[in-house]
């Protein structure tokens, strides 16, 4: 989806996550979903295919490392939501105006909340792996 109100320098492709685009809304939950899937694959392959017994002591650090990377990416998205969309965590004044600016602020606000939710969801995947450490 191309940005609408942005002046794109000649020769530069339009940015996917920028004012006017809603891709930022699906980015954070997609990172959570990717982390969940990768963690599942790592654990499943380790436990079922590599024949390493019933302990996840080693691959759990892979899951934790992936989690740290994903949370870092989500923090980056949150920064974009604030800088490019003008998003804030708490909207004090209602967004009722029908304008590009108001829509961007709304998208930025929702993206920020989704970033928090996705980061917590990633934590909830990493914590059981770290504490239990068993297949």
């Amino acid at each position, binding site marked *: 989806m191309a940005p609408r109100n942005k002046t794109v320098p000649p020769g530069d492709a339009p940015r996917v996550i920028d004012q006017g685009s809603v891709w930022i809304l699906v980015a954070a939950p997609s990172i959570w979903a990717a982390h969940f899937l990768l963690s599942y694959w790592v654990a499943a392959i380790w436990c079922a295919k590599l024949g390493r017994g019933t302990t996840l002591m080693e691959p759990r650090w892979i899951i934790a490392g992936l989690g740290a990377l994903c949370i870092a990416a989500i923090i980056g998205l949150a920064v974009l939501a604030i800088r490019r969309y003008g998003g*804030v*965590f*708490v909207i*004090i004044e209602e967004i009722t105006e029908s304008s590009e600016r108001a829509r961007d602020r709304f998208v930025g606000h929702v993206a920020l909340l989704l970033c*928090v939710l996705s980061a*917590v969801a990633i*934590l*909830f995947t990493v*914590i*059981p792996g770290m*504490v*239990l*450490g*068993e297949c």
Partner: protein
Amino acid sequence: MRALGATATLTLLAGCSGRHNWLAAAGEEAQSVETLFWVVLAGAAVIWSLVIGAATYAHRAEAKPHREREARRFIIWGGVVLPVLVVCGLLVWGLLILRHITSDDGALTVRVDGERWWWRVIYDTPEGPVTTANEIRLPLGERTLFKLTADDVIHSFWVPALGGKMDMIPGRETTLALTPRKLGNWGGLCAEFCGGAHALMRFDAVVMEPGAFVRWLEQEARPAQVAEGDRGFAVFEEEGCGACHAIRGTEAQGPVGPDLTHLASRDKLGAGIYAMTPDNMARWITDTHEMKPDIDMPAYPGLQGERLDALVSFLMSLE
């Protein structure tokens, strides 16, 4: 309406007493779950009171503007940071409990296989496995590790007063430890709907003094004492009972149904549902599906009179 409410309350409260009461823990593992429950309940009560208090205050107080910064800070800390920290803390606490109760160690190992709808119980001893069914005896104060699996469908092993529960999954082995802290006969049950007689799939978990437990296990390991030419055992063989049931020390070695070597030493018949009495035993043989629907064991309505009496006497002698 009031009477109906009182009846419903009494019915619910009745579930809070007796040998299935997980709120009066008789084991270390149940105690850890009970403590977690009371902490969560108290925390929930505090949060509920604060929220209702704030709502009441907001409703009654004179409306006045708040500073945006303060409002934003209140929402972020009270609505995001605090809930995340509390829920993460509870998650870690719950996972630590789970790790403790499933860790692979114990002074005694008991394998339990969930069948439709009864429990195959095998004690691993240095002298070899000791097989029994539908009754689990445990030594007081010692951690017993249960290795759980299932024969055909998913069951769940639960002794509310002692600890659990844990799924029993065909083709997989799950573990659960129980450390009883009180003597007694505690109720166990299947906590995962597993078919027609699910609600009748129960067992007794009998906690004994360690010395008495060792003597019981030695007795349980012995073969049955069957007299030469026993009329009841002859009926048992003629009717083909040995094709499904094992009686150690005899030619009956059927692996399908419960091991009957020391059947009469158990308190209950039919997987924890009927008292072990001659009358119930006779009914169990002739009206099997009236007593427990859907089970694999065929009924023997034609077995009557002297032959039935002899068979019941024989089975009731297997102590």
